[in-house]
């Protein structure tokens, strides 16, 4: 089965600075998708960014970008110019691209604190 590991339970960053959240995963599949979801105190799950495994180019979404290393099975999230509203729990997730109805596998999450 696929596993997703987030080794940083908590991270903090100064407002306007850059922070990187780590994620590694284990899979035998070659075609899959990776996601970062944000969960603010309201506990809503909000998609931050996604990456298709077949794409070599790293995904970017405004201040959010990823460093996708397929061979190393690593998928880190970089948040630039951190804002107070970025404070939340961040979950890395994996999903198969070949199996219908396949579930999302989530990591344990990283709690990000933004210091004013």
């Amino acid at each position, binding site marked *: 089965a696929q596993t997703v590991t987030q080794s940083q339970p908590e991270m903090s960053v100064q407002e306007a600075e850059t922070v990187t959240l780590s994620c590694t995963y284990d899979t035998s599949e070659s075609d899959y*998708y990776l*996601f970062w979801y944000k969960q603010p105190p309201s*506990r*809503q799950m909000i998609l931050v960014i996604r990456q298709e495994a077949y794409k070599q180019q790293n995904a970017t979404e405004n201040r959010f970008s990823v460093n996708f290393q397929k061979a190393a099975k690593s998928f880190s999230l970089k948040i630039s110019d951190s804002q107070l509203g970025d404070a939340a729990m961040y979950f890395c997730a994996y999903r198969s691209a070949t199996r*219908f109805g396949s579930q*999302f596998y989530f990591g*344990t999450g990283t709690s990000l604190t933004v210091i004013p």
Partner: protein
Amino acid sequence: EPEVTQTPSHQVTQMGQEVILRCVPISNHLYFYWYRQILGQKVEFLVSFYNNEISEKSEIFDDQFSVERPDGSNFTLKIRSTKLEDSAMYFCASNWGINTEAFFGQGTRLTVV
């Protein structure tokens, strides 16, 4: 913007009672999911549903759980005889295709007393 909606937002039930959690996925989506998150823990997969049947389920999804899509819009999770350890946030999610991200509802907080 279309969104997944869940009702109720919070439900308190007595141990042993049946509860039904309701979800209205985004209308053109084809894949539906239930996840749960015990406070302070990771988001855990319960079940996925496609073409009017369960396509995948986890070990958590035992005989006390069932899902149904009774009409074209609702997607429900029933817990037949609740236990204290069923207390959690339950998220419904849906997506259009296999290569698309899931949109999550705002969750239903279930408290079993």
